[in-house]
């Protein structure tokens, strides 16, 4: 006999382990419970076991992972002891799930209408007309305009945010009692992320559905959840009400997570009279595409006449949503894609095609990429990777070259022993350190960092940011820091440039842009990002969902 409780879900001492390796546990002694309609946040860095814990609740853990102990009880029934058939019946109808990548969780060769119809066919006895009515109703509620016209569209015809809304619609279609959302908005822009999350909260609230929100993003999750669980290395290290947990974190790891939140750096002043290191004058980039053999080439402007001056030693942050052209701008400035108009001036001289100034610029403009694995040749040792970057420093003899390589590795906090390793033998953070070392080893005047910390875990991100600003101070290079993450900008940037639709819409000193944003878009962008402000013991959120929303109040 199971004891009757008012809990919707009870996880008791759950242990998850590998099928072939009994000594290794992925999740240890996880216990928590969930009341109907409650919103619970599960926070942790990559590898903390949060996804496995979430998936095991509906028996969707990968085949190599199996429960080793404990129990999961949903409405008085043990999920672990349930037959595959009953489990299948439970999924979708009583427990729904939303995954991170909406493009891969929707079938690309099936229309949205049919995909939404499938769970209704499986779990209900509604006829065609009623099914259609239900689908149209939910599509309207998740905010898809003209749902009747869009039923026959395929997933690729929707934007990322729309696809995630459709995923949400399909998960909520059967009014489940529990919705599990695993990093549901990580792939989306700040503004879209906010819309989708608020929609998700509102929808679950209306239906009385409980929600487990799984994410690495502590401020985001704290904004929307009543209760938080913090996971690390397979263990729940801390749990409690979101506000309490933030205000006075008990566990060391939670404290470190909060300390990893970026803080605003000091204001530095720059001399405006000297020649800027890099100057853009009316830079334009066009993408051309030919649709058919004889068809006219169609042109699409990705950048509309960008003017920008980057002074010596200055860090300029380039912020914008995806599709705003910020990455295109970075790549055009680096010379990876050709500009279709305008000029790039290096130390006041326009760079031509392959003249002396071009080569000078080429060696003085380096880039740090987002993915530290993709930017390092997997077959090169660290030593060779760094040596490659010094190839054109002709004035160095081999001993000096070797010294420079050693110095560069130590400078980024690694050791000589790492020199003979291959990239895959290093962690993500270490790889990004190498990518940074490679970019600055030739003492360039200008470094472009394209989402250089976006792929990293919060605590690692803080260390890499610290390293970057330290190197920047030490070597004095100018930096164009491209990111969608405004919180990162605050720590590092001297000046902030906001882009939208291929044009600069706001530009100014960091404090001005953050404290007195001029354009409505910047204001919306700033408000969309959950931010933690540090207090003596912990932190408080700048605002919580549902209460004193500065943007909405300001608009009214």
């Amino acid at each position, binding site marked *: 006999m199971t004891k009757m409780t008012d809990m919707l879900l009870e996880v008791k001492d759950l242990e998850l382990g590998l099928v072939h390796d009994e000594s290794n546990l992925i999740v240890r002694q996880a216990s928590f419970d969930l009341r109907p309609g409650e919103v619970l946040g599960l926070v942790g860095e990559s590898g903390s076991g949060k996804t496995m814990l979430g998936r095991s609740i509906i028996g969707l853990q990968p085949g190599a992972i199996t429960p080793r102990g404990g129990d999961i009880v949903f409405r008085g029934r043990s999920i672990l002891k349930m037959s595959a058939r009953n489990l299948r019946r439970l999924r979708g109808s009583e427990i729904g799930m939303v995954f991170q990548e909406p493009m891969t969780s929707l079938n690309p060769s099936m229309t949205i209408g049919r995909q939404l119809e499938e769970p209704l066919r499986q779990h209900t006895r509604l006829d065609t007309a009623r099914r259609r009515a239900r689908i149209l109703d939910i599509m309207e509620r998740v905010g898809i305009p003209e749902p009747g016209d869009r039923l026959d569209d395929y997933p690729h015809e929707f934007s990322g945010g729309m696809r995630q809304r459709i995923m949400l619609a399909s998960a909520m279609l059967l009014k489940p009692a529990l919705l599990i959302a695993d990093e549901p908005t990580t792939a989306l822009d700040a503004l879209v992320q906010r819309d989708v999350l608020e929609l998700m909260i509102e929808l679950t609230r209306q239906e009385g559905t409980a929600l487990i929100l799984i994410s690495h993003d502590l401020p985001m999750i704290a904004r929307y959840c009543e209760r938080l669980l913090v996971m690390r290395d397979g263990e729940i290290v801390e749990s409690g009400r979101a506000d309490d947990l933030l205000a006075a974190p008990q566990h060391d790891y939670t404290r470190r997570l909060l300390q990893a939140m970026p803080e605003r750096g000091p204001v530095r002043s720059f001399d405006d009279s000297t020649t800027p290191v890099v100057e853009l004058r009316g830079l334009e980039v066009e993408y051309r595409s030919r649709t058919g053999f004889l068809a006219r080439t169609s042109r699409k402007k990705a950048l509309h006449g960008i003017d920008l001056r980057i002074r010596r030693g200055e860090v300029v942050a380039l912020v914008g949503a995806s599709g705003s052209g910020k990455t295109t701008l970075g790549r055009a400035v680096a010379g990876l894609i050709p500009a279709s108009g305008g000029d790039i001036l290096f130390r006041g001289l326009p760079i031509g095609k392959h003249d002396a100034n071009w080569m000078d610029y080429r060696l003085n403009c380096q880039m740090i990429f987002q993915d530290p694995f993709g930017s390092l040749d997997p*077959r090169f040792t660290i030593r060779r990777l760094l040596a490659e970057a010094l190839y054109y420093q002709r004035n160095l003899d081999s001993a000096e070259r070797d010294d420079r390589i050693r110095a560069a590795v130590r400078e980024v906090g690694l050791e000589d022993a790492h020199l003979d390793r291959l990239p895959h033998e290093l962690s993500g953070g270490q790889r990004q350190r190498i990518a940074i070392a490679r970019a600055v080893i030739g003492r360039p005047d200008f470094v472009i960092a394209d989402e250089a910390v976006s792929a990293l875990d919060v605590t690692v991100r803080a260390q890499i940011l610290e390293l970057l600003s330290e190197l920047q101070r030490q070597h004095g290079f100018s930096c164009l820091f491209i990111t969608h993450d405004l919180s990162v900008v605050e720590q590092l940037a001297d000046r902030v440039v906001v882009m939208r639709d291929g044009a600069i819409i706001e530009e100014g000193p960091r404090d001005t842009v953050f404290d007195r944003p001029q354009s409505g878009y910047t204001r919306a962008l700033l408000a969309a990002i959950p931010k933690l402000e540090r207090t003596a013991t912990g932190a408080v959120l700048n605002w919580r969902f549902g209460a004193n929303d500065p943007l909405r109040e300001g608009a009214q």
Partner: protein
Amino acid sequence: MSIHGTNRYLGGFLIGCFLIAALVGLFWTPYDPLAISLGGKLLPPGGQHWLGTDEYGRDVLSRLLLGARSSVSISLLTVTFAVFFGLILGTLSGYARGWIDRVIMLLTDTLLAFPSILLALALLSILGANMFGVILALGLAYLPTVIRVVRGAVMSLREREFIEASRLMGHPAFYIMRCHIVPNCLAPIIVIATSMFGSVLLTESALSFLGLGVPPPAPTWGNMLASARPYMDRAAWLGVFPGLCISLTLLGINLFGDYVRDRFDPRMRGL
């Protein structure tokens, strides 16, 4: 041990036998494989001639050993030819794109439009049937496959950030192709080269069987099989032994090829 593991060793063993036979055939054969002895023709397998003699009284075992030698050299040289030029052309095509890509792809697609055996037949009738003709014809016939595979690998590689990072350091295209692109697409090359080896062996035998391979009296497994045809009812061993050699070697290569593919394809690892 899994079936998979056993297959690997069986494949390795069969290839080993084949290579040893080819090596032995290089230095020593029980009899002169070309010596005609009209007195001892069509002798069944037995004490004097382990695998019997053919219609001219030549020792079948000796001829098989010599045939292994020519099969190995033809297959190896053909694969080397196809991989060498395929790597160059495929890398150029995938990295340079533009008109270079279009020209190379036009030629490749033209070649691909013909079945490789038909193409080899046509080329051989122009080049003349000798060992180098065979290698050139087969090499050209297999070239498009390599170009296609390399081009695909290069096109996805060139979008990777480490290639862009290298461009940012000011390295010229040739350096990038040589140091970053080619080493990183070796894995798929090794995989197709292995499976190609078996395929070339079979095609070469088929060509010999059709009378367009290495000309007699030099033995190959294919032409031995071909010349055995009229005697199948009286002297079955003439066809059975070369046939067995071809089948077993191919089996070995295919089994081993699966293993090589699994080793080099990270997606197959851990399955």
